[in-house]
């Protein structure tokens, strides 16, 4: 008995030593939306919550895929101009996507799909379409002609929707919601390079999210909590023909790869879908108009890398961003 009385506190002491290390992450990794995704959740019930978050992403993928013949988006794209009834979930995503187009100053258009297909970015057999073909295809691009009344979508014949620029952001928002509903207060989602933080690290310190340097390595590290960090850049998917580089982010005005002088654009804010739409928008708009949009909206922060190798940071990130050694002295903080 005495032994037990002595051993019990000693054993309790050894338990204390275990508390010094971080609780372990529960992670699931999977392929969805044409990329690889990792959901990591900390704390009790984390494994189950992470798997539920994966289900949320998989379900959205099944609804929103442009290539899957059973998806709601595929049905809409092959409706021949007839009204289509959508599930409330798809309708909600589409409504938010149209809002993002409206706020993008013409930089984002979810009806670009016919042009994207002509470049071959969906099939990996890329080619430069000729001017005449592009002009003809651009006549079928105009998000303002998409009609969404309640859950009924009418897409004019010949037009096609592609939510590729925003789908991962929507998925991250819904997955983060699902994690929070499951009681998780510390989780990190990496949906193909779209980062979404739920809460902060398990020890209460902010998450450290690096931003990719297009030439390898990182530009620097952002400290965030409860934020999405989304980066768009020409380096992510491109092909070369006759010495020229053509990337997958197209300017809806020209139907050609957006050349605004930016090499990459990162948007930081509470919403994954908004940041996903914004990172594309900023990349297409270029430095000056991006800064203008930021001053007007005031609900997001940015990190922009110009093709000349200069970094521009919105003032809200000034304390959160630590550049890598190679980038020190090349950062300009933009004030409101």
């Amino acid at each position: 008995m005495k032994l037990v009385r002595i051993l019990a506190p000693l054993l309790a002491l050894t338990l204390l030593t275990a508390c010094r290390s971080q609780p372990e992450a529960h992670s699931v990794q999977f392929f969805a939306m044409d990329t690889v995704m990792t959901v990591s959740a900390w704390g009790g019930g984390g494994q189950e919550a992470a798997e539920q978050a994966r289900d949320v992403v998989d379900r959205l993928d099944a609804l929103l895929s442009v290539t899957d013949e059973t998806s709601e988006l595929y049905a809409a794209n092959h409706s021949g101009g007839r009204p289509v009834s959508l599930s409330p979930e798809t309708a909600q995503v589409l409504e938010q996507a149209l809002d993002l187009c409206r706020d993008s100053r013409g930089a984002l258009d979810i009806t670009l799909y016919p042009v994207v297909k002509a470049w071959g970015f969906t099939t990996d057999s890329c080619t430069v379409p000729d001017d005449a073909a592009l002009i003809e295809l651009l006549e079928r691009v105009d998000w303002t002609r998409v009609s969404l009344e309640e859950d009924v979508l009418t897409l004019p014949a010949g037009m096609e929707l592609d939510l590729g620029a925003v789908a991962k952001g929507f998925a991250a928002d819904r997955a983060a919601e699902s994690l929070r509903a499951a009681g998780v207060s510390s989780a990190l989602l990496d949906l193909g390079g779209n980062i979404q933080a739920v809460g902060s690290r398990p020890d209460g310190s902010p998450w450290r999210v690096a931003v990719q340097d297009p030439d390898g390595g990182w530009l620097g590290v952002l400290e965030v909590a409860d934020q999405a960090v989304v980066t768009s850049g020409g380096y992510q998917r491109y092909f070369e023909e006759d010495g020229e580089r053509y990337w997958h982010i197209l300017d809806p005005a020209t139907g050609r790869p957006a050349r605004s002088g930016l090499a990459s654009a990162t948007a930081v804010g509470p919403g994954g879908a908004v940041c996903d739409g914004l990172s594309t928008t900023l990349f297409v708009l270029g430095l000056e108009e991006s800064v203008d949009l930021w001053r007007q909206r005031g609900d997001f922060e940015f990190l922009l890398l110009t093709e000349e190798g200069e970094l521009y940071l919105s003032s809200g990130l000034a304390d959160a961003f630590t550049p890598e050694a190679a980038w020190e002295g090349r950062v300009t903080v933009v004030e409101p």
Partner: protein
Amino acid sequence: MRSTRFWALLTAAVLAVSLLAAAALYLLAPAGRTARVYLDGELVRTIRLDRITGTLPFSVEGPAGVSVIQAEPGRIRVSSADCPDQVCVRQGWVSTSAAPIVCLPNRLVIELTGGDPGPDAVSG
């Protein structure tokens, strides 16, 4: 007598607990930097990057063909691959757990754990 036995028992108990705790700490201590190579979600190879001394080349085969991988002390890369997009090759050397090397066409994922933790994730 009784007192001697008591102290002997106590010493033995403290010793036993200490040994157990030391063993537990040793076993639970984070391993050095380790690379894990997955094909279509299945672990096909584990390399302790903190234990190899020279360059260790090897290759794996997935649906898009052969990916040639090079491991060196502390880092790993895909040096060449049959995949059409070459995204994995362009990613270059990776030495932290922040972002895995991914080759979508070949369903190949190379993950790093242990060592200097670096950032929690990479946006890009």
